[in-house]
């Protein structure tokens, strides 16, 4: 069974600075997807960024980027120019790929609570 580990239960960063959230996973599969979800105090789960395992290039979405190290099974999230609105729980998640498309189940880490300080 796949597992996802987030080793930092809580982190804090000053506004405008850069922070990196760690995530490692365990799988024997070669085709899979990785995600970072953000959960602000509103409780809504918001997809931040996704990475396909077959892509060597790291995904980027505006101020959010990932460092995907497939051999090390590591998938960290970097937030640049942190903003107060980035304060949230961040969840790393893993999904097996399926050859014909369709969807598999998400396996989540326990989350990292990020606080951005003014």
């Amino acid at each position, binding site marked *: 069974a796949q597992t996802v580990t987030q080793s930092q239960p809580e982190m804090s960063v000053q506004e405008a600075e850069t922070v990196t959230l760690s995530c490692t996973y365990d799988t024997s599969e070669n085709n899979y997807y990785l995600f970072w979800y953000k959960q602000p105090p509103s409780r809504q*789960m918001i*997809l931040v960024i*996704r990475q396909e395992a077959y892509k060597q290039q790291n995904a980027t979405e505006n101020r959010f980027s990932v460092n995907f190290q497939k051999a090390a099974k590591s998938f960290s999230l970097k937030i640049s120019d942190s903003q107060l609105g980035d304060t949230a729980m961040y969840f790393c998640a893993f999904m097996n*790929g399926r050859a014909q498309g369709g969807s598999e189940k*998400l396996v989540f880490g326990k989350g990292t609570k990020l606080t951005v300080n003014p």
Partner: protein
Amino acid sequence: DAGITQSPRHKVTETGTPVTLRCHQTENHRYMYWYRQDPGHGLRLIHYSYGVKDTDKGEVSDGYSVSRSKTEDFLLTLESATSSQTSVYFCASSDREEQYFGPGTRLTVT
């Protein structure tokens, strides 16, 4: 954002009573999921559906049942609620890899 709603948004119930949570999506997504979120555990999959009347168990399915009679609706039932089922419940739907989540239902079992 995908149109996913959950009802009710909050519920307090007593131990031993049946409870049904509803998830409704307007995206015609094939796949739907129920998760529970508890402190220190992240989100864990309860049940999922890969089509109308096609469902399967997830990681923490004991004490829960589901039904999907229409593409847009996915119901989660607690046959006899227990205090250990106090949690926040999230529904999600997808057509491919990305899952879109509803706003969550906070359930308290007293």
